[in-house]
């Protein structure tokens, strides 16, 4: 069951959510078995920023009912480190590579996108727009006008497919998706994590996470994700990558039913590193049973 997505031909519709699978670290733990049994039809890198980031102070994790709040803070080696160190390793994966980037200004994003546009190893780009605008303090992706303004500058800098990763922490995700499409995005992906707070279990009024708030993921957010993916898919003509709490082939089928072209798996990979493989097989079985009429 191959899938066409932004000019790429993928072996199945299951990819990873950005920042939920480090293929380089996983290879250290699992060796060549990871490459031989790679669980995703395309690999989405963690977010790359212009300068290196060490990430947020720990604690960074908090388990919730059916979910996880994380406050990781986008640790990465920066653009230079990614190009020199990570990209050659990621290029050895047996699937197309989508590189996720974030910048707090259009200028930063343009620099990132131009540098990656030069590299043949990169098949597509994903913009993380859940980043506060340095002028307004609001997430760029939360304001459709701001999002469109940034995209109009970034879009001409690359001929590669450009995916916009929408934030769910906004009043009108449909309007943000529409703005992305109007400004030339080739696809949108959603949902990113929902802003969440974890209280310290023993100290009243004190946050547990080092950065106070984080993002909620896992099955706890699946119903919210389905609503937002459904709304966005109805609003735009470009393909949608749906994600949020997908744990099984049935969950992936539900994402496809509401209009997603690809389905990303995130938190479930923490529970089972090979979850992507299992979910794509379960999805195949569902297609086989239903006579190929899902989605």
């Amino acid at each position, binding site marked *: 069951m191959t899938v066409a997505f932004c000019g790429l031909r993928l072996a199945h519709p299951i990819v990873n959510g950005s920042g939920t699978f480090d293929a380089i670290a996983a290879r250290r733990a699992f060796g060549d078995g990871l490459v031989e049994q790679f669980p995703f039809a395309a690999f989405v890198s963690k977010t790359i920023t212009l300068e290196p980031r060490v990430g947020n102070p720990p604690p960074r994790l908090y388990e919730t009912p059916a979910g996880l709040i994380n406050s990781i803070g986008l640790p990465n080696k920066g653009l230079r480190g990614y190009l020199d160190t990570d990209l050659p390793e990621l290029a050895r994966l047996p699937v197309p590579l989508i590189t996720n980037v974030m910048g707090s200004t259009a200028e930063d994003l343009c620099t990132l996108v131009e540098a990656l546009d030069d590299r043949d190893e990169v098949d597509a780009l994903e913009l993380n727009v859940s980043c506060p605008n340095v002028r307004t303090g609001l997430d760029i992706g939360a304001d459709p006008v701001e999002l469109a303004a940034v995209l109009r500058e970034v879009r001409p800098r690359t001929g590669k497919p450009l995916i916009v990763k929408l934030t769910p922490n906004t009043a009108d995700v449909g309007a943000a998706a529409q703005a992305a499409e109007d400004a030339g995005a080739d696809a949108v992906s959603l949902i990113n994590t929902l802003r969440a707070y974890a209280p310290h279990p023993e100290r009243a009024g004190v946050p547990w996470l080092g950065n106070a708030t984080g993002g909620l993921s*896992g099955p706890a957010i699946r119903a919210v994700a389905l609503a937002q993916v459904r709304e966005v898919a109805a609003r735009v003509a470009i393909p949608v990558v749906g994600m949020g709490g997908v744990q099984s082939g049935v969950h992936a089928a539900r994402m496809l039913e509401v209009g997603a072209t690809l389905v990303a798996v995130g938190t479930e990979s923490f529970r089972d590193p090979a979850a992507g493989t299992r979910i794509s097989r379960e999805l195949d079985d569902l297609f086989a049973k239903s006579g190929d009429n899902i989605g």
Partner: protein
Amino acid sequence: MTSEPRTLAPFGRRTVDVTERRELGAYVVLAVGDPDGPMPRAGQFYMLAAAERWGGGSDERPFLPRAFSVLRARDGAGGVRLEFMLEAVGPGTERLSELGPKDRLHVTGPLGVGFARPSGGRRAVLCGGGVGTAPLAIWQDELLGRGEPAPALLGFRDAAHAPGAELLHNARVATDDGSHGHHGLVTDLLAEELDADPAAVVYACGPPPMLEAVRALCEARDVPCQLALESGMACGFGACFGCVVPLRDGGYLRLCVDGPVLDGARLAEVPAH
């Protein structure tokens, strides 16, 4: 590092049978048969989750698997037999502690980097606290199997926990309340041991305050130490970046792929979480 003590894990999680459950005071030891897994190195860990009813406990948890250092491993006719040491302290360990023969467990591992052998003519000294006893048992097995000395010093809260010391050979025990063995901290015993012969490498695992005391004591005496740290982890294989520890020279290191065993000299202090 090509020589790091790391056995690679098969990719993905396996579902294995619990073959034995036994209680040791406040602790539970679970044994599983792992026919498709390799022999782990001492100090490596596994991510564990009950195959059934993982969730729906206190606060509708657990959700994520839990990291456990391997207590013991034996290679036999039916494959590898693994043992884990648990204490029920939260929704994950409560559920795992209920398991017994006929229950099934999801396991991913072995993960991380284990203990490295003593070098420079130094002898091993093992120092553990609470469930931190676990990785020292498999390490002591290996050292004694090579005919090397491996004295063990273990600290527990009280006499209800002290039976955990039975997992090691000839351990000297300290309890916080004096109800068993030395009344005081296990680091009192460690100081005595190092006073007698400082040509040692200390291998330690236990709660953060104990590990920090071991680290500081070893630093003050210029004795190398390898610390098996603990942290909440979501994945265990470097995906989530949740289990980071700040390094003396700045930046963070992921305990799951670069640890859990660290050279104490790399840390300015053992973090409280």
